[in-house]
């Protein structure tokens, strides 16, 4: 059974089809780099998988169950926004999300997660006082807090410095070791390719390529884009 399966998913915003029959599968334990130019439909697809948006047509399943309802417990989502409250401290933010995600002993889990992303010393600081990179690290800690089986990450490397990228890489590697399935949309192809086991390319709402990451992709991050520019669909 696939961890994630999107079957001929269409999504219209008014008359505009953001997704045009996107079909995509990820096996349990896979790390999928979801690539595509601006407006290709990456965020829309991730939002539908996270059940933040309903497809106009088609179906998304998580471990065989339709997205939504109980599948939410299995998902960790990091979108464009950091998803933390500016007027709560770092520890209050993570404790709250731990409680909502049904984490056993949320306060302890929140403290451990902050240590892990290097924010242990500022745990009582308000999120609004943090730098952009620190806020992104707090968001990463929030997304990983409940050890989700499926991680959906939309541009997770954005605004991270080298140290924070290292922290994120470590968290992603650990999650993969524990059997999590990861789908991350990104423009930072080099960082994503280091971890990816599978690569999917979205072009104007269609998945034009989905397959294992190859040596060519690792050596030349732009290779896949060039391949499909030469052979327009």
């Amino acid at each position, binding site marked *: 059974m696939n961890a994630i399966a999107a079957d001929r998913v269409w999504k219209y915003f008014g008359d505009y089809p953001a997704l045009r029959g996107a079909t995509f599968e990820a096996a349990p334990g896979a790390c999928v780099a979801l690539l595509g130019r601006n407006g290709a439909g990456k965020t829309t697809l991730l*939002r539908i998988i*996270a*059940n*933040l*948006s*309903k497809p106009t047509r088609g179906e998304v399943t998580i471990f065989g169950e339709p997205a*939504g309802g*109980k599948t*939410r*417990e299995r*998902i960790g*989502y990091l*979108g*464009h*926004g*950091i*998803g*933390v*409250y*500016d*007027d*709560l401290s770092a520890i*209050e933010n993570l404790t*709250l*999300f731990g*409680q*909502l*995600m*049904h984490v056993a002993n949320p306060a302890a889990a929140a403290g451990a997660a902050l240590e892990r992303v290097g924010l242990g010393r500022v745990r009582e600081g308000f999120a609004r006082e943090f730098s952009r990179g620190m806020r992104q690290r707090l968001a990463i800690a*929030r997304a990983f807090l409940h050890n989700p089986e499926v991680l959906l990450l939309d541009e997770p490397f954005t605004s991270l410095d080298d140290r924070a990228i290292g922290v994120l890489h470590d968290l992603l590697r650990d999650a993969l070791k524990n059997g999590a399935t990861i789908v991350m949309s990104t423009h930072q192809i080099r960082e994503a390719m280091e971890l990816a086991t599978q690569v999917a390319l979205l072009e104007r709402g269609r998945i034009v390529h989905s397959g294992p990451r190859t040596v060519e992709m690792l050596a030349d991050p732009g290779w896949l884009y060039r391949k499909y520019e030469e052979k327009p669909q």
Partner: protein
Amino acid sequence: MKRDLLAALFIARKDLRTEFRTKEALNAAVSFALVVLVLFSFAFDLERSELYDISGGLLWIIYLFAGSLIVNRSFTREVPNDCLDVLVASPVPAWALFLGKAISSFTLLMVVELVSLPFYGLFNNIIWMKTFWPHFGLMLLATWGITVTGVAFSAVTVNVRLRELMLPVLHYPLLIPLLIGAMEMSTALLRGDAVDNGPNLRLIVVFDAIFTSLSLYLIEFILVT
């Protein structure tokens, strides 16, 4: 079910904690209510008995306008940093999220109402203490009706550009039956009339029951589109 109700309380506690820290909605609503009370007290030159005749109407108009400032913030509070996405993607069912928001807005609106009630009595020379407890019961029931419909429309308008304008346009017409009941009951209670408040009370209870059930059922379709 128990876990979901607990989640609703966590969300309500979070909203109240952030509101009491920033006092964004609370300061605005209390100041607004007091300013309108002062203006009303100067606007009408009425006999004491006439003041009692319009007392329920005045009171609930103030509560309604102040309530708009409170309920408008309930889902708008989740807009910065896309926090609403995280809540919707979490295992918390939409109805529990809604319930948490309704509880926090209800608490805040009750605070505004309780703070402004003594000033209302003072500025308009109306004795409200004698019937405080029955009136408090009415406030609880009618405020829940205002809150539950307001929070539902706050969810509907959360992604609308002119949400501050849209919310009252959608919300106020729906509240007409509830407000008629609450205004008549308040006037009767403050005047000390020995009238049967049963029909108005039933109207308010039925309104609350219908719109609470509808909102809890429909909120998933409102939030995930």
